């Protein structure tokens, strides 16, 4: 399934890397429910969030600067940071 990482820039403890925001990838696997670091970093009890591994092609992230566009990066992204494409 194809997803885009939201291009949001809120303050706080965010574990969605800046270099992946706005980028499109494919869901590699669903991992399960985890505490949201955006809440727990401030000792707030928020709802757990689904954590998903997303696979991105280097060409999508770095464009023509990529060493080899078919190489990939996989990262864990909380589902509330993803939107369908």
């Amino acid at each position, binding site marked *: 399934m194809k997803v885009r990482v939201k291009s949001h820039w809120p303050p706080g403890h965010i574990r969605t890397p800046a270099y992946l925001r706005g980028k499109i990838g494919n869901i590699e696997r669903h*991992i399960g429910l985890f505490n949201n670091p955006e809440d727990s970093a401030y000792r707030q009890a928020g709802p757990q969030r689904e954590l998903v591994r997303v696979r991105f092609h280097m060409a999508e992230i770095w464009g023509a600067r990529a*060493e080899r566009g078919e190489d990939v990066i996989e990262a*864990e992204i909380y589902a509330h940071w993803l939107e369908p494409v």
Partner: protein
Amino acid sequence: MPHDHHDHSHEGLSTSGHPYRADNDTGLSYWQVMEIALRELLIEKGYLTAAQIHAQINAMDSRSPANGARVVARAWVDPEFKAALLDNASEVSRAMGFDIGPMHLIALENTDEVHNVVVCTLCSCYPRNLLGLPPDWYKSRAYRSRTVIEPRKVLSEFGLNLPEQMQVRVHDSTADMRYIVIPAQPEDSFGLSEEALAAWVTRDSMIGVGLPLAPK
């Protein structure tokens, strides 16, 4: 005598020719003070004893890449074990007797077509509960930033030159998972016992910046 020559300066070296390490005479940093304060409070309030804290430090220090090497060696000789490891690496590591605490571990298999390498761009997440403390370079800003931008160049600086047609998969430990690479078994090691194979598995090969090596 080996050190009885005067053609260069011995400034900063001991009489036996080793560099001096500065004494820790500077003040404590903010976080060092905070750690001591928290530790003393936990002991004074009776939540923990000094012996318990020290035992936990010892337990962490005693974890080493040898633990992961045993997991990889078993995966090389036992296809069913490898399948279970790729399915749920935490459960399988615990079943082998390793106390990995609450760590969520994912195993990544290197093949003829795919090479995996692990990084944490946001901090320095590492499967410490299985492999022990990470190497210093793993925590460096250079490794953390360059591995996602130019992994092939970084790997070549580790002495690992991958064929162009092999896919590089960079795994950024951004959240709750930790990763161990199952390197491909070297042909020279086929037929060896599980115990002998464990000696081939290097720490770097489990991070993905190296390959297994014949023990010296």
